[in-house]
C-alpha cells in the first residue's frame, strides 16, 4: 500500500517567487526565510517522496468567484501554472497522477466529501512557490503532484473542523491505494497576515506560535475556531491556516515535529515552515 512519509507546511507568498526569480535568497531580508529550507532539502533527499498531495487555495487563477468550489481535487496527468497578473514568471509544468487522483476522489465521495473533480486545473503560486522552495535546483520535478484546492477566499469557508476531517479522509485514502508510493502531504499559505482594510499589516505572533505547537501535538484544538474567529486571530488571509489543518488531518498516524522556522515579516506575512515526520499506526483512532 502507498504510505505517508510526512508533511511540509510553508507560506506561499508571491513575493517569495519573485525573490527566487531575482536570486535574492541570500540577501539579509530573505535569508531568515530561505535558510529554513536547508533542513527541508535534507529531509526530502532522505525521504525521496514519489507523490506530493498539495492542500492550498487558488487566488483567482483557476477559479473565479462565479463558480467557487469548497473542495476541488485535480485529476490530471499534467498541471500548468500561468500568468497571475502580478509579475511572477510562469513556472514550468507539473506531472500529476490521474489514477491516484481518481482513487482519492472515489474514497472522498464514498466518505461524503462531495468534491469538485478537475481534469483540467491551473495551479497558482500556492503550489508553484512551495515546489520551487522544496526543489530549487531540480531539472525535473522529482514528484508527481495531486492538487487539492480549499476555498479560503469566499465566505462561508469550510470550518476548521471540516477541513481536518477532509484531510483525515484523504489520509485514509492515500493509505488504501494499492501501490508502494511514498507520499508526502503539503499545506501551503499563512501564517497570520491581512492585506486588506484599515487593519492591513495585522500579524499575530502569539497565535501563530500556538498554532505551530498545536498542529503537532493536538491538532483537534485548532478545529474549534470558527472562520470569523480565525479571521480575527490570524487576519483575513491568515485563514489559509485551513490548508495546514487539512494537511495535518491527512497525517493519521503518529506525528512528530522534525523542524520549524518562523520569521516576521516576509512581504506582509508571518512566514513559517514546518516539517512533520509520520509513523503509520496499526490501530489508528477514528477520525
Amino acid at each position, binding site marked *: 500500500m502507498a504510505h505517508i512519509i510526512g508533511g511540509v507546511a510553508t507560506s506561499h507568498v508571491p*513575493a517569495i517567487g519573485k525573490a527566487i526569480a531575482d536570486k535574492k535568497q541570500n540577501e539579509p531580508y530573505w535569508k531568515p526565510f530561505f535558510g529554513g529550507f536547508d533542513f527541508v532539502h535534507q529531509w526530502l533527499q532522505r525521504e525521496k517522496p514519489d507523490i506530493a498531495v498539495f492542500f492550498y487555495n487558488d*487566488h*483567482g*487563477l483557476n477559479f*473565479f*468567484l*462565479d463558480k467557487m468550489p469548497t473542495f476541488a481535487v485535480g485529476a490530471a496527468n499534467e498541471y500548468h501554472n*500561468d*500568468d*497571475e*497578473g*502580478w*509579475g511572477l514568471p510562469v513556472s514550468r509544468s507539473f506531472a500529476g497522477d490521474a489514477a491516484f487522483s481518481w482513487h482519492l476522489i472515489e474514497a472522498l465521495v464514498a466518505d461524503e466529501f462531495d468534491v469538485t473533480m478537475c481534469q483540467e486545473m491551473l495551479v497558482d503560486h500556492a503550489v508553484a512557490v512551495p515546489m520551487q522552495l522544496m526543489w530549487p535546483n531540480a531539472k525535473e520535478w522529482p514528484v508527481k503532484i495531486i492538487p487539492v484546492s480549499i476555498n479560503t*477566499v*469566499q*465566505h*462561508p469557508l469550510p470550518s476548521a473542523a471540516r477541513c481536518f476531517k477532509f484531510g483525515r479522509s484523504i489520509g485514509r485514502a492515500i493509505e488504501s491505494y494499492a501501490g508502494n508510493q511514498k507520499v508526502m502531504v503539503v499545506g501551503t499559505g499563512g501564517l497570520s497576515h*491581512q*492585506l*486588506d*482594510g*484599515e*487593519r*492591513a*499589516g495585522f*500579524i*499575530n*505572533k502569539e497565535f501563530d506560535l500556538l498554532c505551530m505547537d498545536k498542529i503537532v501535538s493536538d491538532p483537534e484544538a485548532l478545529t474549534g475556531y470558527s472562520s*470569523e474567529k480565525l*479571521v*480575527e486571530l490570524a487576519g*483575513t*488571509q491568515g485563514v489559509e491556516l485551513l490548508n495546514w489543518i487539512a494537511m495535518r488531518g491527512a497525517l493519521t498516524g503518529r506525528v512528530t515535529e522534525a523542524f520549524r522556522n518562523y*520569521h*516576521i*515579516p516576509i*512581504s*506582509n506575512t*508571518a512566514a513559517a515552515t514546518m516539517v512533520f515526520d509520520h509513523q503509520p499506526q496499526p490501530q489508528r483512532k477514528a477520525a
Partner: protein
Amino acid sequence: MEHHDIPGTTIFDGDQARKGLALNRMCFSFNSAENREAFKRDEDGYCARYGLTKEQREAVRERNVLKLIAAGGNVYYLAKLAGIFGLNVQDIGAQQTGMSVEEFKQKLAAAGR
C-alpha cells in the same frame, strides 16, 4: 450577513461577492497581459465594458483600495489591478492604514519583536 465586528476588516461574504462581481471579474481578466494593456490604453472604457458601477469606476480612478473593498472588491483580485499601477502589497497596506510605505514596513517588522 451579520458578522462579529472585527475592526478595520471586511469579511468577503455573499453580500460583498454580489456587490463586487463585475469589479472582481474585471480584475480576473488582468491575468492576461493583453487585457492589462487594453486597460492601460483606456481605463474608464475598460471599466465600462465590464459593467462597473459609478462608485467602482471612481474608486479605480482614484486608486483607492478602501473604496474598492467597500464596493465589493476582493483583495486577491484587487492585487492584480494594483500590480498594473505598480503598487505591491506594502504600498496598498500603507495606503489603507494612512502610513508611509516605510512606516508600514516598520509596523510589519515590529510585529516580529
